[in-house]
């Protein structure tokens, strides 16, 4: 027992970020049960098959970061050498569990003695392969083990890759006694932005289930939150404390193509951006109102009642669209382009207005530079809605030009979305296609943050329009999101596959 139960635990930071969430403590595996019934070799073979199915499913469910790692584990799992070695143990009277454990222990011992920490980290892979088969030998039906019903911080001696992949949807943070910077779980946690601290003392296993934990993945520190100190059990934590990765902000989805995939996680309550210019691959379809309508209805139906902000076609120099005149230097782009090609604008607006019955939609204006552009478009939306006999949806605008970033309150929009991609390039006077962007990215990031901090954010806060949201490269960068949150951003609009990849914890 520790002298001071509220003193923080210090460990090794493996993945950055801070999180406040209840603890979910795994206090070791169930005891291995042995059985002599039936053919041990057949049992082992069946368990390996079951484990392979579980890993294969995890491979299909996992994002691109995890896929090759799971594939590696599958390759090891199916390696005939391991089965042959386990069979030798069984032949000498051992059980399937003993055979498999001994086969894997030999490999683990081989790597554990390595001086190279990257090679020694392979111990985790082999231990995971050992454990998943043993789990399947005990009772394949019981896999996976019970999981918490809310976003939580995993606390355990170690965390196996297969367990991470199966349970990551609720993991707001990870705290273990043993792990490696080079380990695959640490690698995936970093990619997903999940705070991870390891090398913590074994006394963390004494923390009560449900205790409120703050985990600092940057400092490598785990604390029982002072708010709930004194051993008090925490039943609930306010929903706003645990959202995307437990940092006090929420996320909406961004749609970039018609490959919508499975339904959205329950915790994503809106679709913040549909980039319509990316939905049309055939040259003729963009002029066809029914083709527009068919796409918007499908997205609205898929969104299952969530509000969907559909952005008008954003035609710019770097985004030419088949079937439309290409934007050249000094030509209007974005909203000004659409107002110039008014027939195209009307086709899209009519299709949007006629799709409103499929779900709540909002119209988002791209690349606005002049308040008159917003006013003109709003008038057109109202006139068309009146003609079609449908309600006028909210009309918002992207903040992605210097004009809108400097004084967003001069534009009569119902809502805003800060587009960081264009804002970054414009903040240092370059275009997206400019090769200098690669070397001047740091300048662009800081110029954008300064621009937002000095001009856009104070005006957006004054506007009272909520949430203050951002999309694009900076919003998608887990290292920069905290900085944006400090500036006052409340929502980040991320690609659908990104939201699934990070395993959105469910709000309580």
């Amino acid at each position, binding site marked *: 027992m520790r002298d001071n139960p509220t003193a923080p635990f210090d460990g090794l930071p493996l993945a950055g970020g801070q999180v406040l969430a209840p603890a979910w403590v795994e206090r070791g595996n169930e005891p291995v049960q042995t059985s002599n019934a039936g053919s041990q070799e057949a049992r082992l073979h069946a368990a390996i098959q079951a484990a392979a199915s579980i890993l294969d499913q995890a491979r299909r469910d996992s994002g691109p970061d995890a896929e090759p*790692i799971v594939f*590696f584990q599958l*390759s090891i799992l199916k390696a005939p*050498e391991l089965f042959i070695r386990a069979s030798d143990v069984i032949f000498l009277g051992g059980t399937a569990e003993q055979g498999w454990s001994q086969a894997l222990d030999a490999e683990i011992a081989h790597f554990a003695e*390595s001086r*190279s920490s990257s090679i020694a980290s392979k111990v985790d892979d082999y231990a995971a392969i050992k454990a998943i088969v043993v789990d399947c030998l005990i009772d394949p039906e019981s896999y996976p083990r019970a999981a918490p019903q809310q976003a939580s911080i995993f606390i355990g001696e170690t965390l196996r890759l297969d367990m991470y992949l199966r349970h990551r949807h609720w993991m707001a943070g990870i705290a273990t006694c043993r792990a490696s910077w*080079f380990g695959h779980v640490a*690698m995936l946690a970093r990619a997903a932005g999940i705070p991870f601290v390891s090398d913590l003392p074994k006394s963390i296993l004494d923390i009560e289930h449900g205790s409120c934990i703050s985990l600092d993945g940057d400092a490598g520190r785990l604390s029982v939150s002072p708010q709930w100190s004194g051993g008090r059990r925490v039943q609930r934590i306010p929903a706003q404390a645990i959202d995307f990765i437990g940092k006090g902000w929420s996320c909406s989805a961004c749609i970039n193509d018609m490959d919508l995939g499975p339904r959205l996680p329950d915790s994503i309550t809106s679709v913040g951006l549909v980039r319509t210019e990316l939905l049309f691959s055939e040259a003729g379809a963009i002029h066809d109102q029914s083709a527009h309508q068919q796409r918007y209805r499908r997205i609205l139906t898929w969104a299952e009642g969530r509000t969907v902000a559909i952005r008008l076609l954003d035609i710019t120099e770097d985004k030419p669209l088949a079937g439309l005149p290409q934007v050249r230097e000094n030509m209007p782009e974005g909203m000004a382009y659409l107002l110039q090609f008014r027939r195209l604008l009307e086709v899209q607006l009519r299709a949007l207005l006629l799709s409103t019955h499929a779900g709540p939609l909002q119209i988002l204006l791209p690349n606005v530079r002049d308040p008159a552009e917003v006013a003109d478009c709003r008038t057109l939306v109202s006139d068309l809605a009146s003609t079609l006999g449908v309600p006028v949806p909210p009309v918002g605008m992207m903040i992605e030009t210097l004009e809108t970033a400097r004084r967003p309150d001069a534009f009569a929009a119902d809502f805003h979305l800060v587009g960081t991609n264009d804002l970054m390039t414009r903040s240092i006077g370059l275009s997206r296609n400019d090769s200098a962007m690669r070397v001047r990215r740091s300048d662009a990031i800081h110029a954008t943050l300064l621009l937002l901090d000095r001009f856009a954010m104070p005006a957006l806060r004054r506007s009272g329009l909520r949430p203050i949201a951002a999309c694009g490269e900076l919003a998608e960068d887990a290292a920069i999101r905290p900085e944006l949150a400090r500036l006052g951003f409340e929502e980040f609009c991320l690609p659908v596959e990104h939201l699934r990849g990070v395993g959105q914890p469910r709000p309580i």
Partner: protein
Amino acid sequence: MRSSGPNILAVNYRVQLVGGLHARPAVRLTQVASQFASLLTISAPGKATADAKSIIEVMRLKIEENGTVEIRAEGSDCVEAVYALIRCFETVDEG
């Protein structure tokens, strides 16, 4: 590079993969090796020789960054096989 006969080729190669031969390049290496008819082995100084088509044996070599290995092929497609394996070592990949 030395050739011990018409169907045998052996190459000494210095591994420059950052952090050594990790999971992903190891899997890729065994997959590529399995595409060839030649008997393919990899050996490192002071360690056992590994069948390049076996992930278990390749991983056991614990090949570290800047370590030297001998890639050896015996068979009709030995030249193609050796060069294909060298390409696997040259592909930078984490994990």
